[in-house]
């Protein structure tokens, strides 16, 4: 209390003066900072990288209004133009036909406006992904724009709400412009298009002669069109044919074919495939069982088979009885499960062997009681197998596993690396792993990944967003259980 009078509190006026000084100082600082525009001083290279790789097209365009420095930056830095109606406008409010028409109009407006600003630009990739509601007139000019801009890669992902099967002369589908002349495209992806309405010979293929990869989905093709196509694409190395509805016989051959990769994906009317391609390395097939013929395919070492069959064991018969005979050189086989029913149908003594197969990938589409038999049968047919990858299913269906007898033990002496994906801890899954641990006598590592994956094609897999069904406790319990079954020296991992 005694100090009360001695302590000198600043008077009100003094206090406010201090505040003012502080404020002035702060303002000075802000002003100083404001003067510095560091980002605009960055080199074009970095600003271009920000704009082209980290921003959406809308944000990229917006940067052009910031200042003179930025005005043309986006135009010179963007080399990949990707117009995807769904990412641009979302798919939430599209319910009625009117909504779709409105969205298509918007889409056309935005693409036209953007391209209008991008005159004289250089492009590498150009993609259109939208429903066009039969408003095809802008597509030709967009394609021409992309080609003029030097694009090497072009995607035309058109789709329709209701998808009528495209047939020859279907004026409703967009027709690839026949008057493009010489172009230098390397990669082309077409979906829901027609290649010509004028009949053969297709003038359009003239614009295909620099292609190294081509993907056609929902495109009308007949047997002779494919022959023409292969003749007119002398550089083609990668070909994907998907849902081309009318193709019934597919013949892949040509005098100077360079094709290395072929994917045949769900051609509903296909009955026969004949492959005569000396350079082919990888062949992937999904769809109903057809008649296969391989001639002069000595380099073909990777095969993916996903045979969807309503009846019985077509796929299994083919993989176990015929394929090994056609392609004894096979090194990698990716195969989806198909019904086996009884082991006795495929007695191991009668099986041909895959003497060069070192990598086997097996996919179960749903929990199947006989998946283990299927695995064991294929393992027996591939005595030198080194790597096995299993893709199990998370689906839980009550299946009567116990009804089936466990397969008898059989040593798989070359098998060293096993990877199991989609592991959810189901008893039948544990049975499979236990069998492997017992019979793969030189096993070095077994990796178990609870994450499910699905096949994208061409050796690429994608993780399901699905959550892991395995609790830490469960994982620990299974780990201990498996450890007891495994032989010394095996590296066992559950992710």
């Amino acid at each position, binding site marked *: 209390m005694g100090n009360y009078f001695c302590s000198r509190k600043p008077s009100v006026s003094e206090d406010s003066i201090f505040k003012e000084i502080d404020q002035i100082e702060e303002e000075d600082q802000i002003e100083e*900072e404001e003067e510095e525009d*560091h980002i*605009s001083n960055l080199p074009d290279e*970095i600003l271009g990288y920000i704009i082209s790789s980290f921003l*959406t097209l809308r944000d990229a365009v917006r940067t052009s209004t910031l200042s003179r420095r930025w005005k043309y930056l986006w135009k010179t830095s963007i080399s990949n133009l990707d117009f995807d109606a769904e990412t641009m*406008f979302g798919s939430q*409010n599209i319910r009625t036909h009117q909504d779709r028409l409105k969205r298509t109009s918007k889409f056309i407006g935005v693409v036209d406006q953007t391209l209008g600003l991008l005159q004289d630009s250089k492009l590498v990739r150009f993609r259109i992904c939208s429903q066009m509601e039969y408003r095809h007139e802008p597509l030709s000019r967009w394609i021409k724009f992309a080609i003029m801009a030097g694009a090497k890669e072009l995607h035309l992902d058109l789709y329709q709400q209701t998808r009528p099967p495209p047939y020859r002369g279907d004026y409703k589908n967009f027709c690839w412009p026949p008057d493009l002349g010489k172009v230098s495209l390397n990669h082309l992806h077409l979906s829901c298009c027609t290649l010509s309405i004028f009949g053969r010979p297709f003038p359009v293929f003239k614009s295909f002669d620099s292609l190294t990869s081509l993907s056609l989905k929902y495109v009308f093709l007949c047997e002779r069109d494919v022959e023409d196509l292969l003749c007119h694409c002398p550089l083609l190395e990668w070909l994907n044919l998907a849902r081309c509805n009318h193709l019934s016989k597919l013949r892949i051959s040509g005098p100077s074919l360079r094709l290395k990769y072929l994917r045949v994906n769900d051609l509903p009317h296909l009955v026969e495939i004949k492959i005569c391609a000396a350079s082919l390395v990888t062949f992937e097939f999904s769809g109903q069982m057809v008649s296969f013929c391989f001639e002069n395919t000595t380099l073909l070492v990777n095969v993916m088979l996903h045979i969807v069959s309503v009846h019985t064991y077509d796929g299994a018969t083919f993989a176990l009885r015929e394929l090994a005979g056609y392609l004894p050189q096979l090194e990698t086989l990716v195969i989806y499960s198909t019904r086996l029913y009884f082991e006795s149908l495929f007695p191991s003594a009668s099986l041909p062997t895959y003497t060069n197969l070192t990598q086997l990938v097996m996919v179960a589409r749903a929990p199947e009681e006989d998946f283990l038999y299927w695995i064991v049968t294929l393992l027996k047919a591939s005595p030198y197998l080194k790597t096995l990858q299993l893709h199990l299913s998370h689906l839980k269906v009550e299946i009567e596993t116990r009804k089936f007898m466990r397969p008898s033990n059989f040593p798989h002496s070359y098998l060293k690396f096993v990877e199991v994906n989609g592991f959810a801890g189901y008893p039948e899954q544990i049975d499979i792993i236990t069998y492997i641990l017992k019979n793969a006598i030189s096993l070095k590592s077994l990796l178990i990944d609870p994450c499910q994956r699905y096949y994208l094609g061409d050796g690429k897999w994608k993780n399901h967003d699905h959550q892991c069904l395995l609790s830490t406790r469960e994982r620990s319990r299974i*780990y201990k259980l498996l*450890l007891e079954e495994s032989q010394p020296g095996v590296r066992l991992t559950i992710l």
Partner: protein
Amino acid sequence: MSSTKIFLKSSDDKTFEIDETAARASETLKNIIDGGCLDGVIPLPNVSSNILPKVIEYCKKHGGDNGSSKKIANGGVDKDKEILPDYDEEEDKREKVRVDELKKWEEEYMDFDQQVLYDLMLAANYLHIKGLLDLTVEKAASMIRGRTPDQIRENFNINSDFTPEEEEEMILIEDEWDDEWAFD
């Protein structure tokens, strides 16, 4: 791993030490090291002593890891079984801790003012450290994404040097674009 030391000299002639494994996070340094023309000190005329320690800090954290964090390689090591029990759980925990820790580390690492951000970008670009470039560029991009031109200018202290007429034109373009893109 060998821990050979590499010496880096900043633009203002200060020398810094870094492990070779860490230095390999930079493509530029990696090429110099592999090129065999390593002669004592590597001069970096484009990187100042203000920013070089920050770059080294990043390299130390990321050197030696080549992006793959999870899967074990197929080169299955013959490990003794005795040391294996609970290995997976531990590994799993460690993995989670590692990711969390890295996120936290990045957050703290990226806590600096804008001038440092640009210097880091330039250094990462010059030294070809893709991870660091992407980290810094992403920070700048996040200040642009979904914002109006005025907000962006404010974020970066950009002065619009358009003439009033041009300015008006820009506003028109922007409005037109907004109309065009808006979907309701």
